[in-house]
């Protein structure tokens, strides 16, 4: 049997990654001890910082601000070249010049979530008390905590009401949390490929990912940073498993089928004979270059705990009672991570609250990932929804 190639070590050093953690290549809002972040777990996090990007200009009425909420492994670099990977912004299909969310019309804000690893305070940040990396001493955070921190940032930016809050997947959860927690501060909400609670199956997948991280000997009980190492193998396996859930059987079959990678015959080894294996290994190894393993544990946990109805006596409609926010809910037919049934349950609750809601299910075989890809029907819907809301908000969306 030939040698077995395992997942390669990251090309980017831990130093480069950790530099972004405390000194991000973006704007940063610092919150001192006088402004703690009150976390659901009972801890007051203080001091803390939120790293964020903005695009476009706030208008004189301060009425054109759009907050983009990123998904599990996203960050604030929504529409600019990523400082670590050098790749384009993660949502340049939706956000940017000529796109549905155009900086010509809107003041676009995107912040790294609390618990993240791209400049907002999280487990990879330095704990000011010990002078060492937080690691597992960092308090467990929730989706409502992320949104509370964003609200403090929005306050800092002098914005009272957001014209729109937009996000997919974990970003969509934040959108829904915004409308449940601050309905009067959200004029319109675009919630894509998400749910009002994390399903048992999704919690199960997250647990699989966390166990993969924790099974890596380099994890060191979460204290790897003190040893100058990173559990990149465990994190890569977690990413590979998660990545499968973002796709669909049909998409994998179309993209790879059973085709072989750079060979015609099987090698009778555990090398990556199949293209799909090679692809997954690449996904795993490129992910660990830019993401912190403990941050992955914390953010997946935040999603697991998310359940809006549970916070409102078990009745989802109560979370949205009397809400004036205009909603647009979008799901994708082949998304089995956040299936249409989850969006439909949300829409039923919004209907029961007499909320103004549009709901479109878009046909695609690209699975959960579709929200990040080039899906023209999704862009048409997003653009029209925001234009219609903009009209109601009195925004000038014609070319200036």
């Amino acid at each position, binding site marked *: 049997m030939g040698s077995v190639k395992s997942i390669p070590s990251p090309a980017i050093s831990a130093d480069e990654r950790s530099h972004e953690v405390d000194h991000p290549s973006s704007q940063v809002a610092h919150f001192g001890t006088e402004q703690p972040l009150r976390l659901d777990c009972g801890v007051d996090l203080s001091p803390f910082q939120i790293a964020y990007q903005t695009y476009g200009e706030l208008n004189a009425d301060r009425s054109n601000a759009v907050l983009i909420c990123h998904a599990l492994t996203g960050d604030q670099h929504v529409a600019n070249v990523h400082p670590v990977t050098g790749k384009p912004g993660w949502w340049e299909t939706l956000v940017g010049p000529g796109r549905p969310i155009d900086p010509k019309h809107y003041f676009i804000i995107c912040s790294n979530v609390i618990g993240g690893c791209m400049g907002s305070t999280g487990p990879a940040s330095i704990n000011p008390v010990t002078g060492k990396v937080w690691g597992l001493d960092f308090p467990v955070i929730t989706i409502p905590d992320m949104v509370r921190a964003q609200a403090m940032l929005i306050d800092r930016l002098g914005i009272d009401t957001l014209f729109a809050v937009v996000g997919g997947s974990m970003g969509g959860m934040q959108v829904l949390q915004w409308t449940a927690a601050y309905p009067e501060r959200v004029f319109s909400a675009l919630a894509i490929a998400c749910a009002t609670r994390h399903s048992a199956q999704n919690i199960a997948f997250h647990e699989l990912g966390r166990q993969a991280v924790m099974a890596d000997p380099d994890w060191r009980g979460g204290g790897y940073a003190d040893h100058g190492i990173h559990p990149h193998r465990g994190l890569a396996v977690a990413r590979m498993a998660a990545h499968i859930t973002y796709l669909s059987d049909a998409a994998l079959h179309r993209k790879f089928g059973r085709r072989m990678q750079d060979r015609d015959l099987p090698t009778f080894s555990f090398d990556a004979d199949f293209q799909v294996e090679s692809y997954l290994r690449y996904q795993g190894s490129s992910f660990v270059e830019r993401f912190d393993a403990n941050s992955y544990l914390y953010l997946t946990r935040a999603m697991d705990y998310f359940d809006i109805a549970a916070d409102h006596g078990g009745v989802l409609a109560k979370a949205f009672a009397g809400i004036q926010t205009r909603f647009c809910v979008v799901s994708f037919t082949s998304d089995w991570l956040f299936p249409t049934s989850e969006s439909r349950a949300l*829409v039923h609750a919004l209907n029961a609250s*007499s909320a*103004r809601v*549009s*709901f479109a*299910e878009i*046909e695609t075989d690209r699975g959960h990932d579709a929200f990040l890809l080039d899906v023209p029907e999704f862009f048409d819907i997003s653009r*029209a*929804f925001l234009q219609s809301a903009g009209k109601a908000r009195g925004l000038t969306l014609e070319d200036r």
Partner: protein
Amino acid sequence: MSVQEVLPLNGVATGRSGQFRADHLLVAEMVKPGSKVLDVGCGEGDLLQLLETRGIDGRGIELSREGVNRCVAKGLAVVQGDADTDLVNYPDDAFDYVILSQTLQATRQPRVVLENLLRIGRRAIVSFPNFGFWKMRLQLLIGGHMPRTENLPATWYDTANIHFCTIKDFVQLCDEINVKMERSVALDLYGRPVPLNLPWWVWNMFGEQAVFLLSRGGGK
């Protein structure tokens, strides 16, 4: 109550020419400006767009994904849903008017749907093709086959319309479930209202479609 007792609208301009369908114009005339409306089976949103031009806060439900997505791409507040199963999710008195335009005959339970319309909305506006129209009768009587018309071109085996009724049948259902008919108009083949002073059987014979403005009846 018979159709004769029901007052039709005055001064409604209808016709097939122009941007909007005759029954849509008629429905729009029945809705007071500034009210909140749910259009059940809103298709591609033509009626909702017409209502929007009149300052009406309109929402829609549509069964087909293509229809919904076209509506949402027009900026309309439309959700994918089924009149038979999804109306239960709406609270009582959520709307001033609930509109069911040319959809009643395609529902599985027209009676339950009608009851739901008047639970969710203080008023309901229902339009439907009249199966008692003379052309329908003639095709069945002389041709001996299931009727097909310009507006209902589908064959019996692929039509979505599973519960056809006549104007007479509909009036009877309204009486049965204690629904008050506030206004009604029958439109002829050319989308013109059938003259008021004709007896009801003329409506049932010459009305190609009918539009009813309904409200909840008093206790029986």
